[in-house]
């Protein structure tokens, strides 16, 4: 119910009598605004990466982690990208915990530089793909992982990951045609 949007207030210099506007401070909106606006996208990523059965766990872990980190978040410029990045990290944790092999990825960025997930409904279609294809497509295009890391996340060979990705994309093209 929160009408989000960032609250930008001019910061006032406290030193000196001539209180001048020196820079803009971006304040964090109420966390509920993030939930109201982005819960659907986060759930779509979780369904896409770990499947419907475990999607809620991924969703909970994502928002609890976000809530924990939120007050210290420095850049409120792309909250959606930030949440989706966390969701991907939680999905990777999930795959890892499933014992599908260690995942040699570099540290995942704290803040998404670009919004990794376009908002055009295609992720509903991705969510309907068979599990391996779905995970491969999401990890490739939303998390931007290379084939070798997708393979590690899924516990299969790079060749098999490439095949899952290929099959998934082929199916998506057919659905979209």
């Amino acid at each position, binding site marked *: *119910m*929160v*009408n989000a949007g960032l*609250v930008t207030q001019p910061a006032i210099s406290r030193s000196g009598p001539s209180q001048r506007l020196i820079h803009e401070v971006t*304040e*964090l*909106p*109420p*966390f*509920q605004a993030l*939930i109201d606006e982005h*819960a*659907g996208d986060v*759930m779509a990523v979780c369904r896409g990466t770990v499947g419907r059965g475990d999607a*809620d766990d991924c*969703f*909970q872990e994502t*928002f*609890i982690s976000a*809530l*924990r980190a*939120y*007050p210290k978040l420095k850049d409120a410029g792309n909250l959606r990208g930030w949440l989706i990045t966390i969701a991907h990290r939680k999905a990777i944790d999930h795959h890892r915990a499933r014992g599908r092999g260690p995942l040699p990825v570099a540290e995942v960025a704290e803040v998404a530089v670009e919004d990794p997930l376009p908002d055009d409904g295609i992720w509903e279609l991705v969510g309907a793909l068979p599990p391996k294809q779905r995970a491969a497509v999401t990890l490739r295009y939303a998390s931007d992982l290379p084939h070798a890391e997708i393979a590690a996340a899924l516990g299969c060979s790079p060749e098999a990951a490439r095949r899952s990705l290929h099959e998934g994309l082929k199916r998506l093209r057919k659905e979209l045609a």
Partner: protein
Amino acid sequence: MKDSLNRLAERAAAERLLDVAYATTDSPFGTLLLATTPKGLVRVGLPNQDADELLVDLATRVSPRVLEAPGQLDEARRELELYFEGRLTDFDLPLDWRLSKDFRRRVLRAIARIPYGQTRSYTQMATSAGNERAVRAAGSACGSNPLPLVVPCHRVLRSGGGLGGYGGGLPMKEGLLRLEGVLDR
């Protein structure tokens, strides 16, 4: 999705990540916004106040960890409901006073002690807060009351008997005074 969000609010509270929980509730005057910290009720928003603005203000002044979590406000909602039905005269809710400071807080604490169905003047409130000449400041303390209804600033009137002002609008102040039997129904 609704179940997921309820679980999230419960878990956030259990892990002490819920700094401000809020809920809305109906009243005879319109929708109220209620917000609580782990310490107690911190903000009551009246129907004519913009709920989104109040939440942004809480995010800025208390913590940005603001979540809709009606379960945390069950007791406040219950007591308010009884109050509007005329079945409760004294609120028994823990309060978090952090949104008011110094003289204003002293005025509000004095207002909190005005019994149901009685009124006081702004001058009396200034005196109770320790400065009988600060009548205007007492008036503005009432005007900035973050906890209206529970801290009953509607029971403070002008010395001459005029109603004075009210954050929720004068019709609401009159309605509350009628409810409490101060004004004729």
